[in-house]
């Protein structure tokens, strides 16, 4: 199919089979390798991107469903001048990452979380991160990072 899609603010047009997974399109066609594949069952959340304003596990949709969509990946989160998104800055400040593999998906989910639940409590943050698995941090500092970004973003 002829896919017309916007990725990180840039219009992309590609000739790809409609059953290409969005995660494969992002990684293999666009070579945006910050979006990671960590499982085959849409459980781990490492591939999370923001599509049309909502977080989405990019391994669970095919590009045929995404005609005309606007996608933001981890590479598109910082400002044009390289200024970090408050969530990125908070993950660094709070040591919310170790090996870095779940991090892009975790950050994208967290951005979506605060966009739609700006006043989430700690318990709600924990529940809303249900779709993202981290094996390194024990989640303690991830949750702290989301809370830190929450303060900054609401200020």
């Amino acid at each position, binding site marked *: 199919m002829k896919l017309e899609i916007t990725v990180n603010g840039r219009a992309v047009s590609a000739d790809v089979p409609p059953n290409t997974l969005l995660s494969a399109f992002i990684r293999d066609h666009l070579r945006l390798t910050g979006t990671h594949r*960590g499982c085959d*069952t849409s459980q781990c959340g490492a591939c999370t991107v923001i599509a049309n304003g909502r977080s989405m596990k990019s391994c669970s949709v095919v590009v045929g469903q995404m005609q005309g969509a606007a996608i933001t990946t981890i590479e598109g989160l910082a400002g044009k001048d390289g200024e970090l998104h408050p969530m990125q800055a908070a993950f660094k400040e709070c040591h919310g990452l170790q090996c870095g593999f779940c991090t892009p998906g975790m950050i994208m989910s967290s951005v979506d979380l605060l966009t739609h639940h700006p006043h989430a409590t700690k318990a709600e943050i924990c529940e809303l991160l249900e779709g993202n698995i981290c094996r390194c941090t024990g989640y303690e500092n991830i949750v702290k990072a989301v809370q830190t970004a929450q303060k900054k973003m609401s200020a």
Partner: protein
Amino acid sequence: MGANEFVNKPHIGESVRRVEDARFITGQGNYVDDIVEAGQKYAAFVRSTYPHARLTGVDTSAAEEMPGVIRIFTGKDIAGKCGGLPAGWMIVQVDGAPMKEPQRPFLAIDKVRYVGEPVAMVVADTKEQAQNAIESVMVDYDPLDPVIDVHKAANGPALHAEAPDNRCYKWGIGDKAGVDAAFTKAAHITKIDLINNRMIPNAMEPRAANATFSRATGESTLYTTSQNPHLVRLLMCANILQIPETKLRVVAPDVGGGFGSKINVYPEDVGVVWASRALNCPVKWTAERSESFLSDTHGRDHHTHAEMAMDKDGHFLALRVHSDVNLGAYLATFGPAVPTYMYATLLAGQYKTPQLYAEVDAWFTNTAPVDAYRGAGRPEASYVVERIVTRCGWELGLSQDEIRRRNFITEYPYQTPVAMQYDTGDWPKCLDEANKLAEVDSFDQRRKASEAKGLRRGIGYSSYVEACGMGPSRIVGQLGARAGLYESGEVRVNPTGSVTVFTGTHSHGQGHETAFAQLVAARLGVAIENVEVVHGDTNRIPFGMGTYGSRSLAVGGGAIMKALDKIEEKAKKIAAHLLEASDADIEFENGQLTVKGTDKKISFGEVALAAYVPHNYPLEKLEPGLDETAFFDPPNFTFPGGTYICEVEIDPATGVVTIDRFTCVDDFGVIVNPMLVDGQVHGGVMQGIGQALLEEGVYDQETGQLLTGSFMDYTMPRAINLPNFRIGTVCTPCTSNPIGSKGAGEAGAIGAPPAVINAVLDALKPLGVNDIDMPATPFHVWTAIHNAKA
């Protein structure tokens, strides 16, 4: 430089934010699966669907006709042409015979021994084509009965001709006769049976390997998700491919977590190198998560009976332990060492137990090979010790605090009956601090409040000790290690004063790029951002052993410190020449080299420049340049230890266990970066909580199929499982390395499981529940309560 002086240097003990984060939070990390070479081809593996079968034929003809297929390799193609995957450790049995060491070819040749074992490798133009083609490879299996349960292994069908009774070894440590004699004098004996549940490590990055080959030079490059690239190169060259090390470069770039599962040399690593050499093209394989579940090494899987002999006051007299351990179908790289020297040598725990004897029967079964998983042997030991110690207290009517206090080792160094000599510690202090942080004083009020709501509340202690930073090489060699356990470090001061550090350790989440930069900044006065740490590439770094066993700072940092000693010494000589003073009069502090007692000084940057632009330089007695390498072979293991206190609330109606608070007081010796250490504790404890409450790798006993083969079936801890952490530290500097550091990477996973289970049992005791196995899932807890009532 010793620990006492070092600890007062700038940046030491400072929570410096991580240098490596900049690339990870912006999606610029470089993991193996991110690498695509020009002309990249892809491999996929046909894996055994049977746990145990004779391989009577592999027909690749239909698959070879599939679109894009370039070549299919089977066991026949490799038989007699390369070595098997070696074990890194030889265990000598109680009767003096060597362990049974069957061959492990990277593609099965005449038999398959676990579900997921590679049988054939398809190479195709695209990943999809390779995956489609494996479906068309026809494998003829002649199924045999599988051996899944270790207790049935001795009388089951033999996996390997070398081990007709499926026993790899019977091994023992300690004084059996002394233990038997002590038991005859016991006033009280406490017995316990335990299962240390099988774990599946599940680093978030699935394993991957990508090999290139240069026909011009005969050199292969392997990008792989490894914790120890030099070890991969050594074993692959010397044992498997039998090519000189100069013909293989191994690169482990950004690696997404290891937890022990990426120590091994895996069949797929060998496969892609083999294929790329045969086909003269780059060949890449990336695991699907389901392949990770089936084929990554698993962890733990011990069945243990232990008995503690005590006098009438609860002083330990002797401990007797027997474990049946599951090695899986083949010996993985550290497989034989984990349930022996990494396990039974820690069974003394923090206690004065005068007599100790442990015996281990290690069995082959038709399951995935078992190797190190965060803690590797020490969690199994701490689970035995801390479960039985708590039970000893309960049987004698002593609190968990009191039974520990009565038996604590209080003088150091302390020689245990099982080979280890603890250098330093202050375990009563760790217990005191933990009691305070956990607010144990007011526990009874909280218990009453829970009971008023119809809930049960319990508290569980675990005073663990573990061993990190393995060494010295001479001793571990006598115990059967086939490699040395030193580490290397090179400090290269560049002409303009920036510094590159090359380390043989490997960072896959630990934060070495920051912590090692702190060491250099502390010693040389260079800004942290002017220090670059290089790891993971055998063509760039000196030979080293990688990262496992929480060794990187203690052993790898030790090597860097020794290299820094040499840099300082040479810098002083250069400065002495430039300042026209004698070498002995130069002091080096905060990046300045000063003539003692004068204001004559020169900056380290100027010295570096002089070393590389030696116009005014003592060339007749000193070489130019400022670049030093050191190897550090530690004189002893390090012994992190501490007390963990877990407090749980349980709903007896549902069996759901909620951790109310989890308190950790650890003695890691000198801490370079507290933020990184806390992060290690959080992660380790969460994995320990996962083992205690959520996770278990389960094989069907009849069919040998892995029932927990995806994240839908294997319960990973998630953010909702986050406990309220309360973290404290005690510091007794380690005497076995120049930093005074003990290692923090695994303690959480070692100390946590018994604390959780002791808390669960403390909560359920009033209901008549005396025992429960991990994982204490709601179903297991509810069943235990229900059965106790019956």
